[in-house]
């Protein structure tokens, strides 16, 4: 029998029990935010956490290809824009029906992601990253050029999507809709990454040469994953448009794609909840830094409020150079 050597604890194995507990904690906290918001009379918390869940959803979608599939897309903000403008444009023509918004958004997202995916996936490495960025920028300029739909200033949306009896004008209802979509997507992804399809994706990340040598044609699977991740971002965009009653080219800026990546890495690539946790950390940090009263001398407090991006940028660089598995992964690592 071959001798087994090497440190078996070389790869930290996070116990399933710990992960389940952590997941329940996060989900539970999110479910209870409205309660806390109404108790503490802080209605703005509802909006803040709605935003957190929406960006968490988008980051979750991107993570399918980035974390699980090793495709570094720097252009997923494009699909958030498609979702937002689907709602905005239809609304501008008087169509408020949520199902219509959903249908158009998903159809446009499907067409765009198939086309763009087919072109981008023929390349890899640096080229892939740059091309996805370029396509998102193209969409940004397209939106800016659409003067009839607000152009650079963005498109205000008169009313929120109507889904039958569901009244999204009620912020609480909207919050729980976003929550439901997030939970449903989390569960669907949980099944996905452990299915045969998910294994092909993960194998292609681990050792693409070996995958081909085994007989897997990886392109169809990567394309499918890309499309799925894009559609999740479309959903996030639609919810964002409903939350803000606004569709704007700014949703598609290159910096949004960068922020999504930051959220994913902050939270941890290798887990499903990581991106959601990362989104929370990122947006809460933004919120705290721009309004905290730390009592610092020499007007540093004001400087922090105006220029918190400086600190955030520095944090991103430090996290990149330092933390390898993200905050969520680091927290879950077993203590030796």
């Amino acid at each position, binding site marked *: *029998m*071959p001798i087994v050597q090497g440190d078996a604890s070389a790869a930290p194995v996070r116990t399933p029990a710990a992960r389940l507990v952590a997941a329940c904690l996060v989900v539970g906290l999110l479910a209870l935010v409205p309660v806390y918001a109404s108790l503490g009379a802080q209605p703005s918390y509802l909006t803040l956490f709605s935003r957190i869940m929406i960006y968490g959803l988008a980051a979750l979608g991107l993570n399918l290809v980035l974390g699980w599939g090793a495709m570094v897309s720097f252009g997923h903000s494009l699909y958030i824009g498609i979702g937002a403008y689907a709602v905005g444009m239809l609304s501008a023509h008087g169509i408020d029906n949520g199902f219509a918004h959903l249908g158009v958004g998903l159809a446009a997202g499907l067409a765009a992601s198939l086309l763009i995916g087919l072109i981008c996936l023929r390349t890899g490495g640096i080229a892939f990253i740059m091309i996805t960025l370029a396509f998102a920028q193209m969409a940004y300029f397209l939106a800016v050029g659409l003067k009839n739909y607000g152009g650079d200033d963005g498109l205000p949306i008169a009313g929120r999507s109507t889904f039958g009896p569901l009244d999204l004008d009620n912020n609480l209802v909207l919050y729980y809709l976003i929550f439901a979509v997030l939970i449903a997507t989390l569960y669907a992804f949980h099944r996905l990454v*452990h*299915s045969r399809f998910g*294994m092909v994706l993960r194998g292609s990340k681990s050792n693409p040469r070996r995958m081909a040598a085994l*007989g897997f044609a990886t392109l169809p*699977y990567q394309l499918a994953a890309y499309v799925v991740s894009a559609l999740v971002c479309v959903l996030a965009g639609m919810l964002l448009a409903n939350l803000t009653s606004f569709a704007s080219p700014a949703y598609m800026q290159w910096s949004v794609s960068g922020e999504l990546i930051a959220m994913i890495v902050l939270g941890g690539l290798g887990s499903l909840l990581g991106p959601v946790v990362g989104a929370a950390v990122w947006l809460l940090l933004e919120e705290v830094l721009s309004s905290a009263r730390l009592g610092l001398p020499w007007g540093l407090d004001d400087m922090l409020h105006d220029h918190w991006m400086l600190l955030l940028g520095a944090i991103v660089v430090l996290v990149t150079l330092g933390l390898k598995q993200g905050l969520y992964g680091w927290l879950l690592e077993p203590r030796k």
Partner: protein
Amino acid sequence: MTLLQVKGLVKRFGGLLATDHLDLEVRAGELHAVIGPNGAGKTTLLNQLSGALMPSAGTILLDGDDITFAPVHRRARAGIARSFQITSVFPEFDVLQNVMFAVQAGEGHSFSFWKPAAQDRSLREPAMAALEEVGMASLARQPVAALAHGARRQLEIAMTLAMRPRLLLLDEPMAGMSHQESLEVVALLQRLKGRYGIVLVEHDMDAVFALADRVSVLVYGRPIACGTPREIQEDPAVRAAYLGDQEELA
């Protein structure tokens, strides 16, 4: 019955002729060893057989089908399984999952999005069978990161078997192994002989002469001799070019 037929294979890298009008024939069930000094182009040959490299000229027929320019994954589906000079497995997973990948590859498409793959018996059972074949069944749950070098190489062989191939391309499977480990691999290959066509690239001469039905000797990308081990041992051209006059082989 001829399984693999290679005719006039040529590979040029700019001005360098790595494969020089090579002919090779492997019969079903035959273990055909390819030996030669370093730089003779043995791995380049395997790369062209598996599809990692495309030849500059020549033809490669697998059971009559022309696969000369077929991509890697299509050749794998057609029945060619390959082990690499530097072990190529999935380090983030355990041994069983590694082999399950190989089983899954041969089972049509993988557009199944809901059912968990890890518990799928149609993947586990053939994977366990392949592990038993190479004698690694007890290590099924070990993370690959914890395996010794020799065990990893055996895992790779288990993965090639799980593909249910017709032709095995083994690139120095015994490299870096201890004497004991090499003996185990030789025993394994003895068990596999007759069931698959095998192209074995190796430097371990004991193993080659113990296992091979035929041996091709490659020097500067060109086969200078092809025959049974005994014929090769006695061939003066081979002795001069490769084995060296001083070496006495029993």
